[in-house]
């Protein structure tokens, strides 16, 4: 439809509000309380425009553009004098109490309030009275609180409470003294609290980790990157200055993370700056200073010529690095640095997904689902952003139903919230020990993995009676299955979420059967399997056997092992890892951080982290995403692993003058060697990419040394280190000055829009897809006509064993990634590792909360935590927390009281 803004016609989409239409049309209309993900409540009154009845109407009516729907032919005045004056007045009102402390405010330079103030033209204060002041709260190590800056837009509460489901932040008091915070000082409980820093239009909530080494946005060197802390692969923008990674902020991706990040992803970057970094090539028994690269290569060429060379790939290293390792050691000697169980389960998932009968669900698919079944996955802890998406599915389904009831538009958040009250869309959360999303689920089941799988198969049978029924099923389970099946049958876009946290293949199979049974009829079901690491899927697609399979070979002795970015002690039980190293005569490790595996290395090579590297990763859904170097480390020896491996390939082949493969050459080679990766190079910008022959600068054009921090030593800024070879991005502020395409934008910025909200300028419409073509490299392809091959082997019901317990990992939302636990702020929030037991089992063992017990096989004693709804015969042990070890997850262990 056509709308007229200041008498000019614009195309607008039906179902949007006037503010969205204006922003989509590229018009600068200021706003605060509205947010593309949160909808409209009409609280700030900043986006007022005039609406005219017809062409003759000159009087018009002042309306809040966020509260009025688009109508065909509607005439609005944005530049109309009274509307402009009113908007200026609103800013003046906000400013009556705002402290104007921009120079000392962390938000300064990327502040929505600053932008909007300038946009309205308000520049003269008529308010001459004292300003209101508040006491600030301690909100934990991640988020800083400075209430005096607040302009009361309510976004924080609407995000934290309504969107993310946190219940410890709210609005208090009334009139011009409303307060946003907690009931008392304390750590914000939600693992999505970091988004407050971006949702807040000014500096009330800011990133406390950035404060430790503060840098303004205009002084950052930034690049598009991808989060490495779980298998979701949220898009991030990481910023650096003076060789230190300063912060991570959300990089909008419509299909993946939208506008938000979890705290593990946002704050887990600090390992890059860790003192524990490997910065020098090290050879055991040699002084570190003594090892030059020539010497290193010499040493390596000897080691690499050994007969029994094996390479251990990594689920957290890039495709390129894994592939370079595989090429170096040979496909037959390339192993995945994960346990055999994990390898088996991921292979099963790859098999299911490659079959193509099921659509692989993106986070957006999950958010838009009208029924979600979480089968066995502790999604809150293993893929937090997916849990947030599941929550949105439940909330949005209810909202859509309510909106349809009174034909209200979807953006009308205030009205819809009233209608929805406590209604939720259908969610069945079936887990071993519960999760925070239980409280929005219609069906919650806590059961042992085998029983979870049985429930899944029972649901599949209810959906399609050609599938086998459960033998000896109890009535309660069947009832639940019928309830879930009934809800699924009424849904149009159901999503089944599962994954590895049950360490049980039957759960994975059952999830497939449910989705496939749904697809037998007219609707479209999709499935999401959560994997453990950021590139677990990429590694799995390489079809390498697990590291444990090395023992299969009869002569697995005196091996020379090349271990890529991997601490084997986090993936294998200690005994297994020790056994492995005992059979190696030489260990070469490439890693960024010292860990238990690097301790075993004869040669240790400094690898780049994500921030210092280019690379590609495949997320849980088969989406290949590329991340770009944010900066080149000062320590010249730190290089991407594939660089080192390329050099080793040359050294091994005794080609002294050969050149290593560049990134895109490496990807092309991978595509030829392994057709499964066909097209992955589309995910990256070609290194030769340029606009009008110019690079895209990683630094904003205001990067100018104005905040010269070392001016006492030298007024000239240090020159950023330059990359060898070609790259689409330059390391200075020189280069293309215009707005780059969204997929080539190192950061979001637009004239007049310095904050992250400038992303709107890159989108076709607010909260929508980016302008222009963005290649989505999905490695799994839907094959609509293919009939699914169902799994029909249903496991027996779980029977607790005498004196033995099934051991399962208990992940933690902030710590399960290897690297995030190196972040000081996150580490301070980690709970104590423990063993979770059922009430009956605890009584049986004669232990109570806090008593120490020992698990065999295993070495450490851990405190007990009694769980009221955990099944008997199972123990959950903290995984990934400091001081925990790896067990044979999914196997049986013995327990004794310490």
């Amino acid at each position, binding site marked *: 439809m056509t709308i007229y803004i200041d008498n000019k016609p614009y195309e607008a989409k039906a179902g949007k509000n006037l503010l969205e239409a204006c922003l989509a049309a590229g018009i600068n209309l200021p706003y605060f309380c509205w947010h593309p993900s949160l909808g409209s409540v*009409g609280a700030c*009154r900043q986006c007022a425009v005039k609406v005219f009845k017809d062409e003759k109407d000159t009087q018009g009516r002042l309306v809040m553009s966020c509260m009025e729907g688009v109508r065909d032919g509607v005439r609005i005045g944005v530049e109309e004098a009274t509307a402009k004056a*009113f908007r200026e007045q609103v800013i003046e009102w906000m400013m009556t109490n705002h402290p104007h402390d921009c120079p000392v405010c962390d938000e300064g330079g990327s502040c929505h309030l600053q932008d909007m103030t300038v946009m309205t033209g308000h520049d003269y204060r008529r308010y001459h009275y004292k300003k209101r002041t508040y006491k600030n709260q301690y909100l934990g190590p991640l988020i800083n609180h400075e209430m005096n800056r607040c302009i*009361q837009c309510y976004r924080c509460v609407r995000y934290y409470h309504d969107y993310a489901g946190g219940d410890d932040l709210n609005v208090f008091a*009334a*009139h*011009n003294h409303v307060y946003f915070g907690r009931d008392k000082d304390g750590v914000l409980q939600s693992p999505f609290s970091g988004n407050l820093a971006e949702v807040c239009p000014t500096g009330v909530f800011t990133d406390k980790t950035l404060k430790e080494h503060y840098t303004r946005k205009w002084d950052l060197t930034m690049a598009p990157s991808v989060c490495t802390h779980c298998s979701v692969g949220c898009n991030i923008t990481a910023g650096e200055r003076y060789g230190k990674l300063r912060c991570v902020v959300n990089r909008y991706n419509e299909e993946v993370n939208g506008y938000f990040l979890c705290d593990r992803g946002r704050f887990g970057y600090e390992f890059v700056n860790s003192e524990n970094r490997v910065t020098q090539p090290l050879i055991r028994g040699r002084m570190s200073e003594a090892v030059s690269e020539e010497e290193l290569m010499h040493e390596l060429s000897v080691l690499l010529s050994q007969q029994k060379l094996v390479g251990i790939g990594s689920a957290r290293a890039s495709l390129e690095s894994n592939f370079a390792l595989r090429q170096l050691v040979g496909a037959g000697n390339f192993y995945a640095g994960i346990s055999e169980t994990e390898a088996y389960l991921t292979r099963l998932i790859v098999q299911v997904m490659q079959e193509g009968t099921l659509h692989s669900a993106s986070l957006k698919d999950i958010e838009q689902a009208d029924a979600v079944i979480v089968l066995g996955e502790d999604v809150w802890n293993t893929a937090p952003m997916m849990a947030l998406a599941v929550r949105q599915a439940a909330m949005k389904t209810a909202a859509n139903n309510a909106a349809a009831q009174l034909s*209200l538009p979807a953006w*009308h958040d205030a009205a819809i919230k009233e*209608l929805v009250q406590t209604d939720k869309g259908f969610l069945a959360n079936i887990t071993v020990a519960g999760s925070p999303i239980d409280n929005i689920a219609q069906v919650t089941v806590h059961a042992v993995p085998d029983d979870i799988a049985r429930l899944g198969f029972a649901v599949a049978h209810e959906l399609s009676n050609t599938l086998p029924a459960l033998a000896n099923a109890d009535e309660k389970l069947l009832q639940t299955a019928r309830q879930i099946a009934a809800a699924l049958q009424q849904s149009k876009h159901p999503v089944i979420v599962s994954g590895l946290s049950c360490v049980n293949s039957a759960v994975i199979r059952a999830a497939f059967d449910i989705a496939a049974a749904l697809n037998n009829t007219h609707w479209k079901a999709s499935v999401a399997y959560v994997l453990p690491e950021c590139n677990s899927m990429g590694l799995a697609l390489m079809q390498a056997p697990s590291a444990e399979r090395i023992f299969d070979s009869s002569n697995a002795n005196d091996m020379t092992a090349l271990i890529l970015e991997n601490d084997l002690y986090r993936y294998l039980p200690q005994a297994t890892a020790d056994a492995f190293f005992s059979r190696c005569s030489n260990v070469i490790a490439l890693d960024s951080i010292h860990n238990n595996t690097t301790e075993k290395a004869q040669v240790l090579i400094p690898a780049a982290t994500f921030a210092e590297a280019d690379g590609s990763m495949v997320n849980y859904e088969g989406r290949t995403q590329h991340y770009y170097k944010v900066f080149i480390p000062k320590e010249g020896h730190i290089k991407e692993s594939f660089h080192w491996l390329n050099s080793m390939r040359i050294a091994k082949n005794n080609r002294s003058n050969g050149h290593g493969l560049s990134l895109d050459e490496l990807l092309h080679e991978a595509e030829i060697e392994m057709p499964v990766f066909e097209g992955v190079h589309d995910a990256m910008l070609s290194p030769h990419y340029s606009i009008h022959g110019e690079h895209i600068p990683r630094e904003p054009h205001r990067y100018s040394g104005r905040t010269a921090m070392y001016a006492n030593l030298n007024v000239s800024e240090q020159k950023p280190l330059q990359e060898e070879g070609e790259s689409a991005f330059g390391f200075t502020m020189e280069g293309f000055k215009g707005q780059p395409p969204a997929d080539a934008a190192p950061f979001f910025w637009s004239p007049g829009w310095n904050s992250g909200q400038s992303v709107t300028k890159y989108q076709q419409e607010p909260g929508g897809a980016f302008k222009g073509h963005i290649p989505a490299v999905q490695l799994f392809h839907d094959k609509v006509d293919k009939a699914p091959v169902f799994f029909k082997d249903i496991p027996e019901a779980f029977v607790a064993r005498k004196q033995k317990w099934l051991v399962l990992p208990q992940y933690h939302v902030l710590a399960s990634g290897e690297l995030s636990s190196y972040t000081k702020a996150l580490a301070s929030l980690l709970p104590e590792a423990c063993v979770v037991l059922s009430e009956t089992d605890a009584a049986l063992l004669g232990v109570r909360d806090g008593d120490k017990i020992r698990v065999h096989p295993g070495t450490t004693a851990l405190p007990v935590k009694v769980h009221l709804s955990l099944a008997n015969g199972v123990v959950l042990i903290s995984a990934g927390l400091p001081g925990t070890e790896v067990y044979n997850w999914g196997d049986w262990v013995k327990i004794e009281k310490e």
Partner: protein
Amino acid sequence: MAVKLLLENAHVEGIRYYEAYRRTGGYRSVEKALKMTPEAIVEEVKKSGLRGRGGAGFPAGMKWSFIAKPEGVPRHLVCNADESEPGTFKDRYLMEFLPHLLIEGLIVSSFALGSNATYIYIRGEYAWIPDILEHAIDEAKANGWLGKNILGTGFDCEIYVQRGAGAYICGEETALIESLEGKRGNPRIKPPFPAVKGVWDRPTVVNNVETLAAVVPIINMGGDEYAKIGVGRSTGTKLISACGNINKPGVYEIDMTISVEEFIYSDEYCGGIPNGKKLKACIPGGSSVPILPANLLLKTAKGETRYMNYESLSDGGFATGSMMGSGGFIVLDEDQCVVRNTLTLARFYRHESCGQCSPCREGTGWMEKILKNIEYGKGKMSDIDLLWDIQRKIEGNTICPLGDAAAWPVAAAIRHFRDEFEWHVLNPEESQRRNYGLAHYADAREIVAA
């Protein structure tokens, strides 16, 4: 002697209790109404022309007919007893002295609307009244007027008293609903309207205490008879709570045919201004309606006599008229300072703003500060224009009517008494010692006589 429908028996000994109330003809309307159909009751109320007594004056019968009736969804009647408007205390009088009249009206109205659970949301500061109401409810219940199967008709009804926590904004019907649901009392954005989705998402009617009490005489005498009382669209009787500089402050029931002059000066009502002082101004409908100077109060701009009814009081619009509002009639004599009076009101509205939308939250606080400066001799001439500008931008631009309620008194004070504001600015020291007085007009009664 004027007609009295609500306060007829107000002075009967023990009328607060069931026995005396019933003896004087109480609960007759319930007996009558429960034999009628709910639709017929709504029809009677429509015919009566009863307008909402809370302030907006919206026809009650019309409001009732809007209530949605989805199958299987309970409906609710909520009595708005959050009477917090400065100057208004008519509902307090009704609840305190005639609780059974309200209960009776609630039973009839609940039956008409199909509400089996009816709520009285009462202002927190009326701390002693819930006990009176609950006692009356218990008595009514003990005598079979409430509870299950009332009078054998199969109609069940319970009345619950919910105490507010002292927020003026909770008198706004959607904020009241939020508060009743146990949430922060912020107004909702409409639609959905309460008639469709109100308390707990159920169709809800929110009515003022006096409105619901008036249902009793309407049923007793019939809607047509009720409509004959009063004038034009101002039918029936209206309670006026009169206060300020008058000899006889109190709650009066008027039939809306009397003139403002009669109301102020006759001994039947306010009994004139004490100490022979002259009338300066009046806020005729509760603190949020525009203040009128004496000359415009007694006669309209067209020179016609102004009467105590909806139409006449608003004659002339905001330029030269005011509003009936909630019936809080505040009289100011020649010794009163309009600036100070406006400051008091501005302070009230600043404090009672919920803090949801910017114009009201920030604007009311700013207005208070400016008024304070002017009142205390620190004002500048430009402050008066600034004040005018701020109130203009608040009015009509907020989520709920509180913004308007805060803007109107300031606007009217400047509109009619700008000279007094200017005098404060120009004579900072003198304005601290004495009041401006009547200034530019003589005794209002002389004008009326002329």
